[in-house]
């Protein structure tokens, strides 16, 4: 056979990228601060940069902060970020509740240098004559490679 003459070889590459698990660490809680309620409902909003807007006629005190998370993964990869639910309930442990609507600063993040950060903004709905107390709740963010 003239196989050496008529045969043609073809070469190709096979490749894969192995990733490292993503680690997500909370670096700041979403804090609405101290709020004096009123006789009508109103909202307190915290922006991604932590700036608070105190709805009239509420009074706001203390130092607010936006929620913040630090993500560590494979350098250069893009991760997608999601909130399990955009609505969280805060309770005082004694049957009183408030709800807060959450929003992400970004839905995807490029891990330049292997890490990145994102924030959570929130809008708290304060009821009329909301019972006094310390209200807390939890929310969950998910981060995954794309």
């Amino acid at each position, binding site marked *: 056979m003239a196989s050496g003459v*008529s*045969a*043609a*070889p073809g070469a*190709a*590459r*096979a490749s*894969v*990228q*192995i990733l490292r698990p993503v680690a997500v660490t909370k670096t700041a809680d979403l804090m609405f601060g101290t709020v004096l309620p009123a006789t009508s409902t109103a909202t307190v909003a915290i922006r991604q940069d932590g700036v608070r807007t105190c709805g009239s006629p509420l009074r706001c005190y203390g130092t607010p902060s936006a929620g913040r998370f630090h993500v560590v993964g494979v350098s250069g990869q893009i991760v997608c970020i999601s909130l399990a639910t955009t609505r969280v309930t805060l309770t005082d442990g004694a049957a009183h509740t408030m709800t807060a609507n959450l929003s992400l600063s970004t839905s995807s993040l490029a891990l330049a240098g292997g890490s990145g950060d994102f924030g959570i903004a929130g809008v708290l709905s304060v009821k009329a004559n909301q019972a006094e107390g310390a209200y807390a709740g939890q929310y969950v963010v998910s981060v995954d490679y794309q």
Partner: protein
Amino acid sequence: MTFFSTKRLGAFGAVLTLLAVSPSYASTGNGDASVKILRAITVTKSADLYFGKILPSASAATVAVAESGARTCGAGLGCYDTASSGAFHVVGTNGEVVSVSLDSTTATLSDGASHAMTVDLGTSTSSLTLAGGAGDFSVAGTLNVGANQVDGTYTGQYSVSVNYQ
């Protein structure tokens, strides 16, 4: 009258002469000599075999990419990005059938830092008719991901051979 007879005889004689000469003619037959000249085959890679991005687990598992490009992500693994099967384009003589084979059914992927994984390769194409002078075939692969496989970009090479039959 006599003249006329002589002419007829003469004509008859001439016919006899032709019959006598006939056996000495050479006999001829036509034979064909032919050849088909083939064009050299060229094989061009049209797609790399890409398993995507894999998040390993604490146990070994596999990631399979079918010839269609569909990926099956082994239990415990996370698979990301769009995988693709290997693909080759063959150009040769129109209508000819060529054989296709993998030079090796395994390939080793390395991260260039002493970490490696093996890939089992396969193709369902063993021959290909070059309709219109060209044809295509794909290569599937199954990647063996180790337990806690070290992160990084792993690459390797494999080759195929295509030949006229």
